């Protein structure tokens, strides 16, 4: 079974540019999460999709970040325009929740560097 995949693995952009990150969850997983880890610090929650709906987007830092999940399959996270503080590793995770058991499988992450 294929795991969670993310693309690209690494992106270097200049301040003010736009970047779009993609996440393909494990097939059949309705739950999809985006997280960000900055400078080796804690993993910060960004948002949670259930199928194509945003269940919780309380972690999105500001309106420069836009996440979508087309048809409840893959998801994209767009940063426009990018700022220096957006640098970090963006992880996507998916799960098939059974009640309150939510074992999340993580993708390898996208390392974003804004210069």
């Amino acid at each position, binding site marked *: 079974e294929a795991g969670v995949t993310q693309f690209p693995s690494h992106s270097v952009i200049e301040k003010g540019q736009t970047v779009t990150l993609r996440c393909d969850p494990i097939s059949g997983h309705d739950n999809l999460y985006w*997280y960000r880890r900055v400078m080796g610090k804690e*993993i910060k929650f960004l948002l949670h999709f259930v199928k194509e709906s945003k269940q919780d987007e*309380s972690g999105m830092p500001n309106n420069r970040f836009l996440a979508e999940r087309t048809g409840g399959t893959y998801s994209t996270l767009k940063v426009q325009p990018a700022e220096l503080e957006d640098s970090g590793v963006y*992880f996507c995770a998916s799960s098939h929740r059974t009640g*309150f058991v*939510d074992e*999340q499988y993580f993708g390898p992450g996208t390392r974003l560097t804004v210069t």
Partner: protein
Amino acid sequence: QQPVQSPQAVILREGEDAVINCSSSKALYSVHWYRQKHGEAPIFLMILLKGGEQKGHDKISASFNEKKQQSSLYLTASQLSYSGTYFCGTLDLTGNQFYFGTGTSLTVIP
């Protein structure tokens, strides 16, 4: 909202034991534990559910005290492969809010 972990960092020699604590200010339904090695994705270790559960496999076990809203991860007879950053993740009683803890960096040296 974010659970607080302690200690922030710990260095062990092979064979020593460690305890990592996770404390939340909210009532919890479940606690999840993950380990992340440098440059890799977090890997799921275990889930503990409401009801004061204890779990373990091999030399890694955990407990969950729902009344205190705390969980502890126990690593016994540590191995070099245990090195990494450990995160707890908590799910509240609504089942809608999942947050990772502040993380604990664990380094095992020979």
